[in-house]
């Protein structure tokens, strides 16, 4: 895909920096959508340039704004720390060093009432992001297309089952990436589709053997 007109006349976002603010909002928002409900606790660790400049760029406000469900162009992000308190989101901010990581990396360890999630991601420029780790497994997802995240076990036929459900429901798979911890261990499969996958199809995906969760994140 070439560059779009609105990559040049845009993105429309809260300032001051597309990488240190807009991208950080997107990472927070992906984390919230993976959790599927209100985030109650979050431990946020910044690396590299994020660690050095987050205070001046409002990167922590951006991540928390995303965790609260704001899109990058929401004026409320400026007030997100106060809103977090109001909405019962407890957070802690840390900085750390790891030279192997992209310079704008954040680790978010979040919890809703129902579950915990550990997500690492990088803001790679112009507001674009790359989620690099979910629950200890390496992934690679930009969320620029409609994306389904599937949690399952490593077993023969699971992938075929997933592909079968999507195809028979009329979805085209644009991209698919799978990562596993070890043989017969946990797997996360990231599937990009051309249009958002509906509820009924997600239900059917959950019926595929060993699939424990299927989360749809529409492109944003």
């Amino acid at each position, binding site marked *: 895909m070439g560059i779009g007109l609105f*990559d*040049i*006349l*845009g993105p429309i*976002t809260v300032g001051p*920096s597309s990488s240190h*603010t*807009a991208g950080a909002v997107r990472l927070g928002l992906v984390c919230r959508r993976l959790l599927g409900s209100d985030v109650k606790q979050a431990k946020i660790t910044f690396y590299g340039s994020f660690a050095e400049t987050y205070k001046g*760029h409002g990167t922590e406000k951006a991540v928390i704004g995303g965790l609260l469900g704001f899109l990058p162009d929401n004026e409320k992000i400026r007030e997100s720390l106060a809103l977090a308190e109001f909405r019962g989101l407890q957070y802690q901010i840390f900085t750390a060093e790891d030279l192997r990581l992209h310079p704008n990396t954040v680790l978010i360890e979040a919890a809703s009432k129902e579950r915990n999630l550990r997500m690492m991601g990088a803001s790679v420029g112009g507001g674009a992001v790359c989620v690099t780790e979910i629950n200890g497994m390496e992934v690679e997802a930009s969320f620029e297309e409609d994306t389904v995240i599937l949690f399952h076990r490593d077993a023969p036929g699971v992938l075929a089952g997933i592909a079968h459900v999507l195809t028979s429901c009329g979805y085209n798979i644009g991209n698919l990436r799978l990562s596993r911890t070890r043989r017969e261990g946990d797997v996360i499969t990231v599937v990009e589709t051309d249009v958002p996958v509906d509820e009924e199809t997600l239900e059917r995906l959950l019926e595929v053997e060993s699939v424990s969760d299927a989360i749809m994140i529409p492109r944003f």
Partner: protein
Amino acid sequence: MDFSSIEYLLDESAKNGLPIGQIVLREEQRESGTSKEAIMERVAHTWQVMKNAANAGIATDMRSVSGLTGGDAAQYYNHLRNHKNLLGSFEAKAVAYALATSGYNAAMGVIAAAPTAGAAGILPGVLIAAQEEYGFSERDAYEALLTAGGIGTAIANRATISGASGGCQAECGTASAMAAAALTEVMGGTPRKCVNAAALALKNCLGLACDPVAGLVEVPCVKRNGVYAVLAITAADMALAGIQSFIPLDEVIDSMYQIGCGMPSCIRETGEGGLAATPTGQTAKRRLT
């Protein structure tokens, strides 16, 4: 959009007898698969966000998140209201709106990057001031934005618009070129004149370092947006007078890229060299971390 040559835009524009903006609209339609109406609606929304940011930035005296900057636009606008400005009223308004947008950006206000957040004041500063001063329609403003988008896209595809890759010439230089072309278009210049305006603007930004104090989009970024708005107007005015750039825009873009590649990383958005490395810059950084 995958065009990386300004000559392509000029050829298509001449072949079809259309302004550059219409060629850009056609290209974007092809790329995105959406309708012309949907694209124009987004352009209109972008223009509205630009106006909101410029007005909000003047009306409030918000400080930036770090506290390094704030209040410049209000101060300059006051100067203008008291008729103390040395610049003509058009240029002075452009400075005020550019400072306002950039200041609003630094204070976590909502802006439209053009082409980046750090350079977001230049294009709206020039266009909003021009509309106030010369009274063109919203429709004309959208056309001008499309033209600006075409120039920015060609630079992004042919070189870079990122300060980390090419220094500030890639950000404020591109924004100035976009603003110069947009202004020329809206003032009735031919496509060729728009391109000359962009070339004259970009040529005079070559070599510009990206050396922000403490790595923040504030010093020297906010005031630089004000200064480069005037550079864009100067370039447009020369082009409207018929002055041509000796070096064609495509070649100016190539040289901008070459210069960017040769820049040491300390002046490519790392906050390590240039103004960031001065004693004052270092003191400010220590205070913030």
